[in-house]
């Protein structure tokens, strides 16, 4: 379920990569990503904390992470 203001989408082709999951978990300052054995999990309650820093974008191959502003 997306947040009220922000949704973050991880492309299925990288969502199960444990390395990318680990990177995303480490890099997000507001803990939107959780690294699990099965890959990355989006922590839904933190979605609206997103500060739009875009640090997650280069942690995965180009275009595989999408930050969606639901108010636009």
């Amino acid at each position, binding site marked *: 379920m997306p947040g*009220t*203001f922000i949704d973050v989408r991880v492309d299925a082709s990288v969502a199960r990569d444990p390395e990318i999951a680990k990177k995303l978990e480490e890099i997000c300052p*507001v803990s939107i990503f959780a690294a699990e054995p099965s890959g990355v999990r989006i922590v839904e309650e933190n979605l*609206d*904390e997103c*500060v*739009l820093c875009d640090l997650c974008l280069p942690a995965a191959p180009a275009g595989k992470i999408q930050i969606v*502003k639901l*108010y*636009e």
Partner: protein
Amino acid sequence: MRFYEYEAKALFRRHGLPLGKSQLIEGPEQARTAFSALGGGPVVLKSQVLSGGRMKAGAVRFADDAAAAEAAAAAIFPIRVNDQACRSILVEEKTQVEKEYFVAITWDGRAKRPVCVFSDMGGIDIEEVALSHPEHVSKTHFSTIVPLMPHVAKQAVAATGVTGSDLNKLAPIVFELMKIFLAYDLTLAEINPLAKLADGRFIVLDGHIDLEAEARGQHKKLLADLGIGDDETRQARPPTAFELAGVRVNSADHRGVAGNVVEFDGNLGLVIGAGGGSLTLFDAVRKHGGQPANYCEIGGNPSMSKAKELTKLILSKPGVEKIAVMMNVVSNTRVDIVARGVIKGCLEAGKDPAETIAIFRIPGAWEEEGFKILKKYGVDFCDRSVSMYDAAGRAVAKLRK
């Protein structure tokens, strides 16, 4: 934050101000021992509360023997003074007072400097003296930049007509009080009465100290020495459940500030802040005839959830019809994050943000993003071209509709 009288006197004692003999007691049974320890002469027993009006409430009593001291203590302990419970009793030797003086150092907001108020008519309400006998009250400003010199204190005393040896004995006491005021970031250092005894000595009979709450961190050692814990807010009254909930909101998340919540009786909830903005905005709401439901301070870039929880708390207060979200121009707080927080707070409280937020006036960092969010939810907002005063007026006007 206020100090109890015994704490103020402990601070005075450190700085060599003249004080009578005293003992602090925690229960009536200790009164006899204190009486003996003070020499067995007449004593005065004073309830330790953070409030004036002790004498009128019967919380200051005199005793000439040990049994009377114990009886007086037993009578004082249950007395609440302006809803303040008695923490302990200060037992002091009773002195033969010939004349009483008043001295207080405080801030003059208009002059933006400390001011020493001195009167040779102490022991009574200084405002009353200032009205009825203005020639007996002096006001002497001094600098926080130029080193403080003893002659400033002497001028303050001499201005009320005090001369001779009394002037020479009083001036050093006033000078020391000025130094204490500056050294400990106080907002008030007061001695009333400062008594001249029959034998010509001067002593401090009662003292009042208020420390700037924001300076607590700088004076941790002093507070620890005086036994004042971090959890003691020392406000004029005990915190309400609403205010305690505000403390929990602020402490639950380390990001930014959304706290200092103070409860009032009005119907307009306030989410306000930014470098003095809270006080300005609160006053502006009042000036427009509005009735704030609360005071608070947000800033330092609070997280979305922190702004949300504060909003929910304010909206949960009975009688709150709308909230006004207003700050000065912000640079270190994100407009969009606060916008998300207050809107989500409304939604989670089951309210329509467009109807509930009377005005959103936070210009500054990330305002374009914030304004997009506010537009989406139909919230009335304005940028820095609308003054804080006018924004407050718009919020108050909406409540009148």
